[in-house]
């Protein structure tokens, strides 16, 4: 069971780890701000408030999508690493290799988009990357895909190191996941939730990376040998198998921060239970096979896969979410929770996760999907889930770490004002997307009909408010992370 001490000794970062953690998180915060500004540019273009050309809009859209998925993954990986290292022996070289390969991959993607003019969205759906009608070269498309490959290799190295460490401590991944207690036996109350969640992510994401490694290389072969024509539907299945798991895993890595930190602010233990283990075991399977819900509009998809996509859509998110929501609410109930920045962000994250699931499940229903999937309903769902779910989980840890450097939780008026801006802006921004989707406003269009402009304008204003909140968070956290801990040895200042 995780400690109830607010700032336990085993969580302190030695110098090397401290530098690595700061690198990850400061990079992620800066990227989040830049990607949000790109998102704002898109909304303002749709609102007819900026003179951005269509070609540039799609480049920005590609960069925003790839950048946000990558950055969410980078930041939530750091969350997983931060807590998992307390229970198993992780190697810093693997964590840093992931960072270096991520940065190299990001450079490839930035170059492909802004120098090579690549603009076929973060999903690079075949055959669009190789049919640019002169807008970008094959080389740019290839560079974009090589960027993804580099990021995937980095993630794989980190997961393999984490898998080795879990196996070394617990025997195998099944025992890390707690499968031995599903049908009976006395559950070890000290079995860490961080290990259960990390094991699930390692299993699911490694399979996703394998699918990505196959499809990316096949697309690269096709780019240089067009005679090797690929089945577009198979390519799409593999892309979504890998893409869905990469982005879905971010919440399963991020939620570790809620599991580990919330009990410290409520002062109540939050142990592992059989329903908890069952929910994670079920979600491990479901998250691997849920991806066909992205293909409900593809009439050529095998019928059984569509049916599976719908059924698993209903089932995939629920087990872990219900068990987590119930666990967190009972943990908060009658606890005298200290409402500081980390605890408020943890509760916000749970709300964002809960509310973000609802539009996803609605869209995962075949009858609705046929009408809604190409509308702004879908960005409404995933922005809700990411902006108000995953990102607050990352911010929970970051505010906690900043507080740990001063030995007191952060709770200043500036930070609370930032949170207010973030919540108001974030909810408004997502609700505008959802409402526009409800009104059949198409997604991924650079130019909107005059009837759609009010939604775009409202969305732009909400995005500005949200970004103001994020700027407050980013500034305060970066300054906090760069400050030496108050009990640091002056002879060895932390990086």
């Amino acid at each position, binding site marked *: 069971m995780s400690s109830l001490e607010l700032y336990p000794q085993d969580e302190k970062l030695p110098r090397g780890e401290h530098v690595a953690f700061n690198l990850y998180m400061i990079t992620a915060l800066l990227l989040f701000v830049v990607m949000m500004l790109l998102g704002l540019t898109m909304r303002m273009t749709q609102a007819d408030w900026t003179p951005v050309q269509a070609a540039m809009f799609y480049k920005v859209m590609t960069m925003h999508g790839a950048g946000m998925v990558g950055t969410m993954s980078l930041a939530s990986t750091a969350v997983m690493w931060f807590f998992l290292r307390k229970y198993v022996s992780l190697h810093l070289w693997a964590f840093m290799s992931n960072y270096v390969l991520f940065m190299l991959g990001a450079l490839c993607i930035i170059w492909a988009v802004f120098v090579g003019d690549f603009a076929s969205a973060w999903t690079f759906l075949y055959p669009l990357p190789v049919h640019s009608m002169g807008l970008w070269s094959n080389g740019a498309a290839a560079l974009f895909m090589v960027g993804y490959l580099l990021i995937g290799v980095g993630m794989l190295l980190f997961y393999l190191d984490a898998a*080795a460490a879990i*196996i070394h401590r617990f*025997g*195998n991944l099944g025992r890390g996941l707690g499968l031995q207690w599903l049908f009976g036996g006395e559950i070890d109350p000290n079995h860490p939730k961080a290990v259960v969640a990390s094991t699930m992510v390692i299993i699911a994401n490694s399979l996703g*990376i394998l699918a990505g490694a196959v499809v990316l290389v096949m697309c690269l072969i096709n780019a240089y040998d067009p*005679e090797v024509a690929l089945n577009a539907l198979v390519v799409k299945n593999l892309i979504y198998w890998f893409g869905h798991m990469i982005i879905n895993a971010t919440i399963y890595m991020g939620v570790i921060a809620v599991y580990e930190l919330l009990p410290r602010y409520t002062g109540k233990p939050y142990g592992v239970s059989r329903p908890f283990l069952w929910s994670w075991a079920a979600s491990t399977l479901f998250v691997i096979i849920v991806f066909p819900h992205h293909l409900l509009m593809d009439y050529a998809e095998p019928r059984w896969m569509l049916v599976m996509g719908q059924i698993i859509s209903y089932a995939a998110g629920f087990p872990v979410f219900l068990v987590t929501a119930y666990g967190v609410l009972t943990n908060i109930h009658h606890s005298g929770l200290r409402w500081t920045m980390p605890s408020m962000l943890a509760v916000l994250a749970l709300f964002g996760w809960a509310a973000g699931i609802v539009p996803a499940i609605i869209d995962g229903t075949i009858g609705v999907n046929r009408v809604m999937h190409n509308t702004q309903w879908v960005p409404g769902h995933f922005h809700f889930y990411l902006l108000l779910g995953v990102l607050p989980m990352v911010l929970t840890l970051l505010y906690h770490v900043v507080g740990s450097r001063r030995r007191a939780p952060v709770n200043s008026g500036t930070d609370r004002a930032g949170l207010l801006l973030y919540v108001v802006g974030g909810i408004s921004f997502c609700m505008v997307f959802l409402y526009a989707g409800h009104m059949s406003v198409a997604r991924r269009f650079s130019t909107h009909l005059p009837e759609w402009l009010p939604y775009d304008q409202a969305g732009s204003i909400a995005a500005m408010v949200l970004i103001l909140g994020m700027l407050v968070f980013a500034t305060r956290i970066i300054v906090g992370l760069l400050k030496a801990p108050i009990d640091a040895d002056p002879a060895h200042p932390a990086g």
Partner: protein
Amino acid sequence: MSTAERQRLAPAFAVALFVALLLPPVRAWLESRMSLQMLVQIPLLITVGWLLSAALPPRLGEGIARWNRHGISSLVLASLAGMFWMLPRSLDAAIGEPWMAVAKFASVPLLIGLPLGLGWPHMGFVVRGVFLLELTATFFRLGWLYLVSPIRLCNNYLLDDQQRAGEAMLVIGSLLLAGVAIKLLWGRFDST
């Protein structure tokens, strides 16, 4: 049979297997189809090299190990040689050109099997993981490629044979993936 006994018998088994693979009827049969050459003959030649690693004198083995930390040199050498023998052109030439046949029977055991046999015990979990995942991905990629390629990749084999080889590679990739997943989830590990 104990591990020591298996190690003692391994070189003899390697020689016997190598001689069996050289027998003209066996060779002719294994080279009659692309799938047999790629997925039976070459893996058996790799096995010959792997088994031979047990025959190396301990001092030579220790000397090589100094240049083979974590088995990475082995992996690089085996991968480069493996890439060459994955080329359809190489497979083709190994049937039509005697000197290429000699190269195949010498290089596959000595440059793929032997290095892997020597390096595998030194490889940690991460290196083995990267190797197995890349091997699985390669089976899927090549299987897919052989299935969709509109042209014959080898002069010696027909398109349907090529497609059968592709299907077999997809099956092998799936079995490999399932095996690794079962081992990771429920298997026993001596050390990681």
